[in-house]
């Protein structure tokens, strides 16, 4: 399915969405007070009730059970939770799930081909040992794919600057830069 088809599937929220239940103190599980959103995740349209406080990250992990996207800091600082929103990389921990209503999300699970074949960038991370514990890796890969698509992966300096929002506590940076350098030209050939 291409982007244009998706635009038709998704109805942008035309009406004002209002919850009138402020002031609850309980930190209930996501979904408890139920504001409804309509969202496309990894090419699948979903209608969900979410707690207004839930982040897009909570939605992806706790509601949709897509565990690839990781929670590192929960404050926008580490990049472990990076996903694509309408094709742009964002930190899903700093976005209200409500703000993703009517939009298209791609997580690490949505990167592989329909037959399960790894994305060029995923294979490059394996080939270049671009990970140790792997916790930061889904975020690194989502960021790396965006970095190439943005046109920021044409030099080592560009890669380092535009990957700086993804921290790796294991220090696999050298391998990460090598993987992106390797994958970038092949991605540019393989993608529209």
């Amino acid at each position, binding site marked *: 399915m291409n982007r244009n088809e998706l635009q038709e599937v998704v109805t942008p929220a035309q009406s004002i969405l209002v919850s009138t239940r*402020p002031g609850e103190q309980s*930190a209930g599980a996501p979904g408890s007070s139920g504001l409804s959103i309509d969202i496309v995740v990894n090419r699948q349209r979903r209608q969900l009730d979410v707690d207004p406080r839930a982040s897009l990250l909570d939605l992806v992990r706790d509601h949709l059970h897509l565990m690839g996207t990781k929670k590192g800091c929960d404050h926008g600082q580490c*990049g472990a939770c990076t996903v694509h929103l309408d094709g742009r990389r964002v930190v899903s921990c700093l976005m209200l799930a409500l703000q993703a209503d009517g939009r298209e999300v791609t997580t690490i699970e949505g990167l592989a081909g329909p037959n399960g074949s790894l994305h060029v960038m995923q294979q490059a991370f394996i080939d270049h040992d671009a990970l140790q514990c792997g916790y930061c890796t889904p975020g690194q890969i989502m960021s790396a794919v965006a970095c190439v698509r943005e046109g920021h992966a044409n030099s080592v300096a560009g890669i380092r600057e535009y990957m700086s929002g993804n921290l790796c506590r294991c220090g696999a940076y050298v391998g990460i830069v090598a993987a992106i350098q390797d994958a970038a030209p092949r991605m540019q050939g393989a993608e529209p």
Partner: protein
Amino acid sequence: MRSFAYARPLTVMAAVQALADASPHARIIAGGTTLYDLMKLNIEAPQALVDVSRLGELTTFDTSGTRELVFGAMARMSDIAADRTLQTDYPALAESLWLAASPQVRNMATVGGNLLQRTRCAYFRGGAPYPCNKRQPGSGCAAIGGLDRSHAILGTSTSCVAVYPGDWAVALAAFDAQLDTVSPRGERTIPIDELHREPGETPHLETILKPDELIVRIRVPVTVAGRASTYHKIRDRASYAFALASAAVALRVDGDTVREARIALGGVATRPWRARDAERALMGGALTEGSARAAGELAFTAARTGQYNRFKVELGARTIAEALMIAKGRAKTS
């Protein structure tokens, strides 16, 4: 986190209405990268959010005007940073955006919300047991006499030494930008220089905006000094950090003679800080390494330092001097 009511207006008119209905307990949320972050820390606890991130009419910007540049408040940092005209004609503005935060945050954060980001002071963000007059008025300031390495040396008070952390507002201050706002009481225009307050006795009051007042656009008067400009940002690491010291500088030179100098500072002050004494000192003279250095030092004559941030006087002066020479180089090539 406390739960909240949520409204997502799709037009500015509907947003003003939503703010009028929910006031005084509603907060505006745009990209959410400051507000939602602080809600998670229980530092902000709004009863209602008015989500303005989809006000389509405010997401556009225009850098081709002959009188002013216009930025819709909901335009994303990354989109403006990528604008070619801005990169060549106003490098200081473009640099202040792409040297800030991370690529992901820049895709989310709006240039309106950016102006109102709150301090990164660890005592403010950290909460109990540390007192903080910004977080809890009257409780005291743990940074004064505490770990104050990243704190302000200009515009401080005995109540607060927290740094204004943003970059974009500093660059806008150098160019005398103006903000257009709308609220249930009508519209007004605010010079960027008047937006932020020094802490004084009331550090919790950071700007002159009313809670129900929406910034709709930012306007920058066109100036040839834009081409000979830079945002020079000095950080603890090469990328992805807040400024320890920064200088937005723009110049108009005639041969070697300075006809116009604009200097604003970040990372060292409690608000975006215009260094007018330093600007005046440069006017009409030749810009050399020596005069640049002297202007840099002049900007910090009123500095009040704490235990661990004395280095910012020297660092700040050098940052200004370097920025002036970078801007001068751009004046030659343009």
